[in-house]
């Protein structure tokens, strides 16, 4: 995408995000992905990590919140273009002067924003049901990290959606892509537990850097230079994702107009 687009079309992005949230809050699937599944994971993790002490409650809240963020990115953002095709709105959206990636950006913004509900639900669960005292070690840095993470997630989502549209064979792996990312990004346990050869793969996943920095600023006193490094990685990946996404969108739209696949029939 032409990066100016996000600024030029900021109002459109917001309207798209608003409508996207309105259509999705009554969707059982979305609700499950961002509320119930992370909640169940949080309950499990709180029981399992109980012996590690109350310090780990915040770790669980952040970690299970991240699982909700990833699941909704994978399933909801991943399908964001296909969903438009199924409702028959894809043709209208493509046949418009607003660049299509701006529209998908807005949808992902909504998606990532509403996924913060995962973290809120986990927080309420740990604080009220389990009665843990919860506090953030570096609250301001945590919220800055959260904003940056949201942006990185949105950009990551922008590369996934066109891939799922163009390659059905990739989309078939969608179900199998949920838990490996939970594992490799260190959402609920450090990646040091994993075999060494997986470490480089973790480094290539933007959610890994988000998890590292979010855990670091919520349960520990992450040294500022390390935090800065995580931030830089997120920014770097966001830029790379945007560049890749802009090419993917171009190829996808051209291919769809050649193959006549904008509509399902």
């Amino acid at each position, binding site marked *: 995408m032409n990066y100016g687009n996000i600024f030029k079309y900021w109002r459109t992005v917001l309207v798209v995000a608003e409508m996207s949230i309105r259509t999705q809050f009554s969707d*059982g699937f979305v609700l499950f992905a961002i509320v119930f599944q992370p909640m169940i*994971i949080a309950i499990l993790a709180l029981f399992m990590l109980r012996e590690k002490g109350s310090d780990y409650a915040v770790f669980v809240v952040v970690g299970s919140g991240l699982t909700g963020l990833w699941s909704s990115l994978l399933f909801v953002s991943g399908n964001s273009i296909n969903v438009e095709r199924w409702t028959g709105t894809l043709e209208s959206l493509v046949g418009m002067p607003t660049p299509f990636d701006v529209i998908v950006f807005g949808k992902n913004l909504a998606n990532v924003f509403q996924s913060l509900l995962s973290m809120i639900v986990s927080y309420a669960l740990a604080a009220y049901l389990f009665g843990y005292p919860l506090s953030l070690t570096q609250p301001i840095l945590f919220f800055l990290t959260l904003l940056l993470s949201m942006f990185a997630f949105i950009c990551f989502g922008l590369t996934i959606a066109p891939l799922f549209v163009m390659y059905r064979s990739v989309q078939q792996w969608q179900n*199998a892509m949920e838990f*490996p990312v939970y594992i490799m990004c260190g959402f609920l346990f450090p990646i040091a537990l994993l075999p060494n050869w997986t470490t480089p793969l973790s480094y290539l996943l933007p959610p890994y850097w988000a998890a590292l920095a979010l855990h670091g600023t919520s349960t520990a006193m992450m040294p500022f230079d390390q935090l800065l490094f995580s931030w830089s990685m997120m920014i770097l990946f966001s830029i790379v994702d945007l560049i890749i996404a802009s090419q993917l969108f171009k190829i996808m739209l051209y291919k769809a107009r050649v193959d006549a696949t904008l509509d399902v029939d």
Partner: protein
Amino acid sequence: MNTINKNLYLFWQGTMLSYRALFAWLRPVTYMASKILMPLAQMFFFVFLGSYASNGKNVDFYVIGNAIQITSVSGIFGVTMSVGGDRDAGTLPYLFGTPSNRFIIFFGRAFMHIIDGAIGVVIALTWGVLLMGLDLSHTNLSALGLTILVTTFSTCGLGLLMGCLSLLTANVMFVNNFVYFSLLIFSGANVEVTALPAWMQFVSNILPLTRGIAASRALAAGASFSDISPLLVSEMGIGLIYGLLGYFLFSWFETQAKQKGTLETV
């Protein structure tokens, strides 16, 4: 004899057809991804989490618990989709219009999923042995095999009930997902049942899977078949109760639909 043969044929037909219809659209790759890789990844996640929680002491506990829990992929999702599939395909009125034995039709829907689920568990346990250091050297393997089959059977019983409920509700996947994930908590796959609050323990005890997981863990620790046979009998009984509840609901549903003329709209 003739009736038995006919019903056997009907059972087999229903079984194969519903199973094939369910997976026909899938390519082998998708089958692999959703039936083998997804459950394994989920198992690894909880095993790592458990190992982190117990500082690496209790890995077998989590490997066995989560490997057995894999039965519910076939038991809950597979069976529900086979039962509910008739509604989505609009074939329910035709099915209810036939004179064939409802009981056979109904249980035929689950049969292949029992096999399918059991294979899934065996694959998961194999990965556990190869990658996670699971030790089955003191285990009565034939007893373990039987335990796996019984547990899969009882989970499919719950699946049959869920499938019938799915004929009543629009949001099938939501309910299914919810039950599937709840089993991760209640079955003792990841948390000792005794560590749960009393009301949760009660729920654990009336669900399938709980006793199957307990029996498998006992077998892995060297227990004999007679030690675990009471657990298997109860597990079997629980599965039967759920299956029968599902069957009665299915029959009730058919009568209701015919009386109220809602067959077309279901």
